[in-house]
């Protein structure tokens, strides 16, 4: 059980650099969305130069005691010149208010996007401290050495940044390259096999922002780093570049995109009416050159592989009948899962058959809009089974969606009341 016993004090990463974090071996669910069979760690670091000490990130509030004990073993509070916040989620800022009370002279360094969160975290105390937003290329001098900052938004919050300590070639990346894997041996070459945790972490935390991850990797890859110090899981001192390359591979769409624009028509149907509409929309979209449409009956499909396909597609049209004034559960399950993948710039559309009230289409549209898809065509609703004319309208709907995907849609001109009517 050596792996579950915490180191008593700080752990040296290099001369002047120490791990001062905390271990949380009993955690079994992180942020509700990540299962953590191996617990996790909250890695924080102290960096010493001739002009003072920088603290890089803190820990979850209930682990503040361990954090302060390790900090006090490497620095006095009045030596702390900087507190770097690479990310303001509570598992990294839980000890911040107390740290600032103990080291009120410290300058807080964070990305500009972190400011509103810091205001909310410190509330009335915000104005009492020296707070400095920093962006890529800015530095903070520790006398004979310096920290340099790299703005890397959305890995995985808007505020995320990385900090580079050139003297020891250490890159502090907070959640990027992290894993929920608690092992007191701390370093990747000593810890147990954490590959599953590393990949699961990416899937649950970073995948919805995979384009931003790639941008961050492009920014960081030129650095000649000898060690990556993330905020969760093992510290990557042996072959750290392998983790960057693996992350780059994970950040690619699971399925490649073809030369044509891809529209997925996904539906659930109770009596075949919504299925008929779906077929018509699919057939219409197929008529547009440069578009490849595909049809899926969600009742017979697994959601996880469908997500891979949606991630690679350019647009989705979701169809549901209205049952009990609602869209059906399979469609809701799929729409809930859509938050797990990147949807930036995708086209969305809704359709469905109904008997009495037909709320499902509007509900789907609202959800897709909430996910920030663009919905260029108002949803298509048909009462009971579609007539020949309604099937023709379905084909037209599919053609128009396909035209939007290709940037060939005729411009739509509306007056405000028309637009409001949808």
């Amino acid at each position, binding site marked *: 059980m050596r792996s579950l016993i915490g180191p008593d004090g700080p752990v040296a990463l290099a001369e002047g650099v120490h791990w001062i974090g905390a271990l949380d071996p009993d955690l079994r669910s992180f942020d509700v969305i990540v299962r953590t069979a191996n617990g996790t760690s909250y890695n924080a670091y102290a960096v010493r130069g001739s002009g003072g000490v920088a603290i890089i990130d803190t820990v979850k509030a209930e682990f503040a005691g361990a954090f302060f004990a390790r900090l006090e073993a490497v620095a006095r509070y009045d030596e702390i010149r900087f507190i770097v916040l690479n990310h303001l989620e509570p598992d990294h800022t839980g000890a911040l208010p107390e740290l600032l009370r103990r080291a009120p002279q410290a300058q807080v360094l964070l990305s*500009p*996007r972190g*400011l*509103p969160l810091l205001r909310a975290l410190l509330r009335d105390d915000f104005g009492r401290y020296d707070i400095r*937003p920093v*962006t890529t290329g800015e530095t903070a001098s520790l006398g004979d050495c310096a920290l340099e900052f790299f*703005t890397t*938004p959305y890995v995985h919050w*808007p505020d995320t940044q990385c900090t580079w300590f050139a003297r020891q070639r250490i890159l502090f990346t907070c959640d990027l390259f992290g894993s929920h894997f608690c092992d007191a041996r701390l370093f990747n070459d000593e810890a147990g096999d954490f590959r599953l945790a590393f990949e699961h972490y990416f899937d649950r935390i970073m995948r919805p922002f995979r384009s931003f991850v790639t941008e961050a990797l492009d920014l960081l890859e030129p650095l000649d780093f000898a060690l990556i110090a993330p905020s969760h899981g093992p510290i990557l001192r042996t072959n750290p570049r392998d983790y960057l390359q693996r992350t780059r591979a994970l950040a690619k769409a699971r399925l490649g995109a073809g030369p044509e624009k891809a529209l997925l028509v996904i539906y659930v149907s109770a009596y075949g009416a919504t299925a008929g509409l779906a077929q018509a929309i699919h057939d219409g979209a197929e008529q547009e050159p440069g578009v490849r449409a595909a049809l899926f009956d969600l009742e017979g499909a697994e959601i996880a592989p469908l997500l891979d396909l949606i991630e690679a597609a350019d647009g989705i049209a979701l169809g549901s009948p209205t049952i009990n004034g609602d869209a059906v559960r399979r469609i809701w399950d799929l729409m809930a899962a859509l938050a797990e993948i990147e949807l930036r*710039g995708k086209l969305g559309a809704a359709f469905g058959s109904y008997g009495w009230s037909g709320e499902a289409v509007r509900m789907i*549209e609202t959800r897709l*809009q*909430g996910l*920030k*898809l*663009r*919905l*260029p*065509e*108002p949803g298509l609703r048909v009462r009971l089974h579609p007539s020949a004319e309604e099937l023709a309208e379905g084909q037209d709907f599919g053609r128009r969606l396909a035209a*939007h995907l290709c940037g060939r*849609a*005729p*411009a*739509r*001109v*509306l*007056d*405000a009341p*028309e*637009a*409001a009517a*949808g």
Partner: protein
Amino acid sequence: MEKATLTFTDVATTVTVPAGTRIIEMSEKVGSGITYGCREGECGTCLTHVIEGAENLSEPSALELRVLAENMAGRKDRLACQCRILGGAAKVRPG
């Protein structure tokens, strides 16, 4: 009532609106990807890139300027929940 036109290029839609309309009021109705988070000018979710007609939009408030700066927004970016079209035409897309 004075009219203005807003074009949302991501959905190829132009809509005629009363002068003074906030962009967010129309963007959601026409299905544009410009959608809101807080609707109070704090979160930056509705960041909007102005392609043409910036001169026809309301001046940004101190709050909007602060949120734009904190979001490292470009010179042609605005917040759809704060920004009104005052007349003429403007062309926008999600920021």
